[in-house]
């Protein structure tokens, strides 16, 4: 049975077919130029998922939007619980150090949360995710934020329930994400609303980003 030929996407956007047998031919006859050509073609296959990524601007905006709930939550926790305790126990520079660790972690956490969104963009059909990346990714992160706060408020369940009893909750969470995604796909108003929110929140998020980067510097300085 003949194996279907793969389709390669060239950097210029042209699509052409290349026979997979080219690899075998190159190896049999030690035709290194052909090997190089094959490698070039193979690398061009990487361009497929990479080209599915959102634009740099979209990615940056979404990342900054994702940063907001994460940093805001950590700032809230620092002010609510940490700071009053720390200020009784430590000198100012050490308190700055504690806050820096928390904020630096928030930066790492934002990145860890953002990477799966990029991955989704690469693996899902373009029109499912990539084409509405900003709205979908932001919507999912904010909806998830609400769910994760709910989970934290029910800490005992996380500690003692085990996997099976939590499954219905995980299922409900996944369903809510799907409903939100469908809503964004169906309603341009919802998409516009989220996009508009993202644009409005950029300035605040940029400030958070600067704070988080400064926190990383402080952590490095304290540990040198």
């Amino acid at each position, binding site marked *: 049975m003949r194996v279907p030929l793969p389709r390669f996407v060239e950097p210029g956007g042209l699509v052409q077919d290349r026979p997979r047998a080219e690899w075998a031919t190159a190896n049999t006859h030690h035709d290194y130029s052909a090997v190089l050509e094959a490698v070039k073609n193979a690398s061009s296959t990487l361009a497929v998922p990479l080209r599915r990524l959102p634009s740099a601007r979209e990615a940056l905006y979404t990342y900054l939007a994702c940063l907001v*709930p*994460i940093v805001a*939550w*950590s700032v809230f*926790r*620092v002010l609510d*619980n*940490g700071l009053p*305790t*720390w*200020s*009784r*126990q*430590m*000198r100012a520079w*050490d*308190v700055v*150090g*504690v*806050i*820096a*660790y*928390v904020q630096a*972690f*928030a930066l790492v*956490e934002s990145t*860890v*949360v953002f990477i799966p969104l990029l991955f989704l963009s690469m693996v899902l059909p373009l029109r499912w995710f990539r084409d509405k990346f900003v709205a979908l990714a932001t919507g999912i992160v904010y909806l*998830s*934020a609400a769910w*994760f*706060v709910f*989970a*934290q*408020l029910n*800490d005992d369940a*996380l*500690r*003692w329930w*085990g*996997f099976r009893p*939590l499954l219905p909750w995980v299922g409900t969470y996944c369903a809510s994400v799907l409903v939100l995604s469908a809503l964004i796909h169906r309603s341009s108003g919802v998409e516009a609303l989220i996009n508009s929110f993202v644009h409005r929140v950029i300035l605040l998020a940029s400030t958070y980003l600067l704070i988080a980067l400064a926190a990383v510097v402080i*952590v490095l300085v*304290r*540990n040198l």
Partner: protein
Amino acid sequence: MQTLTRRDLLKLLAVLPSVSLHGPTTRQRPLAQQGDRQLPNILILVFDAFSAHHVPLYGYRRPTTPNLVRFADRATVFHSHYSAGSFTTSGTASLLTGTYPWSHRAVNLQSTVLDEFRDRSIFKLLGDEGYYRLAYTHNMLASSFLNQFRSAIDNFTPTKDLCLQDPYVSQWMFEKDFTPAIHAEGLLRARGETSSSLFLYVPYRFWVSHLKRRLNAQNGDLFPRGLPTLEDRVFLLEDAVDWTMLKLGAMPRPFLAYLHFLPPHDPYHARKDCVGRFADGWVPAPKPTHPLSDRVSEEDLINYRREYDEHIAYADAEFGRLFDFMEANGILDTTYVIVTSDHGELFERGIWEHVTPCLFEPLIRIPLIISKPGQRVQRNVYTPTSCVDILPTLLQVAGIPRPEWCEGEVLPSVGDHPAEADRAVYCVDAKGSSRFGPLTKRTVSLIRDRYKLIHYLGYPDYDDVYEMYDLNDDPEELRNIYSSRRGIASDLKALLNEKSVQLNRQV
């Protein structure tokens, strides 16, 4: 590469006594030499939250500590020994610096000693005399200021080394900046309330809890209530004791080893052979609920007490193993062995545990049993002593004069110092105050002779209140005689007022 299993370790320990007869490195010299002086080894064993009120040596009705009783047969038992703090941080800091909390200011739950005390620890002072210094703690509160003394400790073994599970990273990842890092980690890992990590905490908590449940399931036969644990750390006291035996055989002489083990601190996860040991139906006489209590029900307190006693029995069983090892290897002939605690535990007046401002006897009176090298008979000391006395006593043992800043006295019967009949000892709880300013929210207790004065300051609805008890006639502290014995009360108040400068100073 194969790892050393617990079984391998036990085999190794079994042959260690025979090796020690021949090998000069493991067989101890009668007393190690330092110049022309002979310096004994020092082993300080701290069992966390170990109340003297639950030890039969001190009159407790349940036989919780048969091995400690055996050890006491050849040691000095201090019957009125007090911690200077009501929880790990302040109690341990006082033990290691020989100063009261108003001086070292490790008064908050995870605070450290003031910077000037970095060089005023037992490790630094004995290290200067050539001691090899080893420190280990299961308790992350103690690790904060042990980390401050790190430069004076030759071997500060990380907590995780003796844990089955320890997800904390600050001790090895941010060694140079440990205190801020561990505070941040505490917030990230949600010690107490919600985490500062919005997303990653949830999978973390789920994962760590899953691992903990799995470990408990694997060891359910041996530990029916779960493995010994503190927050996300899981450990076995057996591992710590095995490790101690190895270290005792291998450390350079003379050594100072400070080993701070968590049991019988809660949760009271005793080993199977101790569970149910005290299901005797004993119900202690109830005491009136204190205004500053959490109003824990009497029924709960009775159950907690029983579980605590069983956990003490577990700690004692492991101590017994260590004691036998030391006896068999002649370590007791060359070493000062000190068994004590950092604070006690309360099961009365609606109060459970030790996070309380109420400084009643079960909370602050702790065991102190010291075996001098070669001691064969039991001696008893009844005058009040404090954990701040341990540092000057050990300094005297090493021939070092008591430093000017030290607030302790040489313990009677261990050193050459006679017992001071009129000695006053103190305990301070100031968790709610800033360590840098006046300790405005605090409880201070003072014990002199048979009387004990407690002063509560800065608590809503219980501000500037005094309680006084006669510990001889009323050891259960049921009758507040502050109003009826005005003369003695004003004497003790005057003593307390002498400390107000230190309590109210800005640092």
